[in-house]
């Protein structure tokens, strides 16, 4: 505050959680800006839920402190923290009407019953389900139930909205739709939100900031583009999107570019964003979508681009896109995904593959 920096809405300071011998969350510092939507992303068991539940007060940190609005809340009991929580399976009270569900939190908040009615009505309108007050949760579809869960959480005007894989029980199409809605609603209300998911698409498309975790440790934090395009390590690159990993050695460094000799003997160019020097063993990460494939005979190499020759080894038609596995020889294979505009390549066909150095991201060998 002295530095004029805006006070974060939620802050973790050296937070750590151990269950018996399992360390679910390893010492972690992390801040969440007011009004932003932050996603905790990582494989199953990496500690996302645990972190979220510590904010909610459903788990107690083994070490470290949690702050909300600058106030340490470690010892505040759950029901006194003003939080909205949304669960994967909605957790609507099956024995209460929608009205009673949504009004539940207000009952404990000194709100007159007229106001309660008014607020519930507004919340239901906000989630675009006006008029369902008298139904039971079981009379609503999955997506509708999820919306009611939203309404129930936001109606209390929480300081922070916590969502643990709220969309993963929905089927693909509905999930995409709900993703947009949650996103819109969050922006509309400007409520600080922590969102847990292991679905990278969800994380990439919704977040202001993504925290990638692995085995209880922070791997990378940043906005979606930076996390996707500049993964800080192999794990992050592998976890997000379809990546090709090409190992090699830096053979030359010159004005913002690095030349890397890869296993096949080819030398590839990459932008130098990380301060690499000659002789460094590196890993080059290229997203499958960043390659372009051309029929061998039609291919004309472009100056300053990287290219390979190869043969289609396997392909998989996906409608909008086609996924190819291209054999480069010497046991190396790359995976490319291309939007299909013209014809499909046949298995065995000779192709040339090209990728811009701009899309070749280097990391130090781990």
């Amino acid at each position: 505050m002295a530095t004029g920096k805006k006070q974060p809405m939620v802050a973790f300071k050296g937070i750590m959680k151990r269950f018996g011998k399992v360390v679910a969350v390893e010492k972690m510092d992390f801040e969440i800006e007011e009004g932003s939507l932050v996603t905790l992303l990582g494989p199953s068991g990496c500690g996302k839920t645990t972190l979220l539940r510590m904010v909610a007060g459903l788990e107690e940190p083994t070490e470290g402190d949690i702050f909300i609005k600058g106030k340490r809340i470690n010892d505040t009991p759950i029901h006194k923290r003003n939080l909205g929580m949304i669960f994967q399976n909605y957790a609507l009270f099956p024995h209460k009407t929608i009205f009673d569900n949504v009004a539940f939190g207000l009952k404990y908040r000194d709100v007159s019953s007229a106001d309660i009615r008014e607020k519930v009505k507004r919340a239901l309108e906000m989630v675009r389900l006006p008029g369902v007050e008298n139904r039971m949760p079981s009379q609503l579809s999955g997506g509708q139930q999820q919306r009611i869960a939203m309404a129930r959480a936001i109606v209390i005007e929480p300081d922070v909205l916590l969502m643990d894989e709220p969309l993963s029980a929905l089927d693909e199409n509905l999930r995409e739709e709900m993703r947009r809605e949650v996103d819109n609603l969050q922006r509309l209300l400007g409520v600080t939100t922590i969102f847990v998911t292991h679905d990278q698409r969800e994380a990439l498309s919704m977040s202001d900031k993504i925290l990638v975790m692995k085995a209880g440790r922070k791997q990378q934090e940043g906005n979606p583009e930076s996390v996707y395009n500049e993964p800080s390590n192999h794990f992050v690159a592998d976890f997000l999107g379809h990546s090709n990993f090409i190992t090699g050695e830096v053979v030359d460094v010159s004005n913002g570019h690095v030349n890397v000799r890869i296993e096949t003997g080819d030398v590839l160019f990459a932008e130098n964003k990380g301060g690499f020097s000659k002789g460094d063993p590196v890993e080059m990460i290229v997203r499958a979508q960043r390659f372009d494939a051309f029929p061998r005979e039609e291919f004309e190499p472009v100056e300053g681009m990287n290219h390979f020759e190869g043969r289609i080894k396997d392909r998989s038609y996906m409608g909008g896109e086609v996924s190819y596995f291209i054999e480069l020889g010497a046991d190396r294979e790359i995976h490319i995904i291309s939007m299909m505009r013209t014809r499909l390549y046949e298995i065995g066909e000779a192709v040339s593959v090209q990728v811009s150095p701009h899309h070749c991201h280097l990391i130090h060998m781990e």
Partner: protein
Amino acid sequence: MKQVSIGWSLIRIYTFLVYLFLFAPIVVVIVLAFNPKQFGIFPMEGVSLRWFIKLAQNESIIQAFQNSLVLGSLTAVISTGIGILAALAFIRFEFPGKNTLNTLLLSPIMIPEVVLGVALLLFLRFLQQPKSFALLLIGHVVLTLPYVLLIVQARLVGIKKEYEEAAKSLGANAFQTFREVTFPLLLPAILAGALFSFTISFDDITATLFWATAQNQTVPVKIFSMLRNSISPEINALGAVMIVLTVATPLLAGYLSRKFSKIKE
């Protein structure tokens, strides 16, 4: 897969015979309750309500009925009450020795009632304490607790923690959460458990024989002592009344709870 094979028919016949075996004694009791004869069983010589009338005039049996009902109801209430608490502890908390304690609470199923009956008798004698209704009641609670525990635990496992967590995150404290969320969701199991313990208590003979004081003899104990004088139409009539009572109650309760839970889910 069609089920018209000979094998399937045999299975049906077999099942029918097993049912016959299980139900013959029950049916016979009810039929013979209307037997006007004092001695001998078959053939029946007409139909009479004589023994029911005799029963209705037998104060000690009516007293026993009252005792059984009071005992059964109190057992059901207490057993379910403390069973819910114990189930909450086992399902919602982690603590050392949990499995052992759970097994301990379930162990009355496995320990012969004769042994339990004797054990308590000796213990009381040692303490120089009189038997009492309260003791009989706690004894029945211990006997029925395992069943309540099993039923309530099973249901509680099915009630996701998230409901309670949602309630708490919305501002309800522990008690409010229980009252507003856990209890109503648990209700079908609570009813089932209460019913189970009522019938077990109402029907118990072995341990009750040891524990009951002279003043609070129950119907089965009464029947037991009547049986020492051999089978009689009066016992059959009493049996018939018991059957109707104990069968009608759960059926009614089952119907009601199904109606309840339909609203719930």
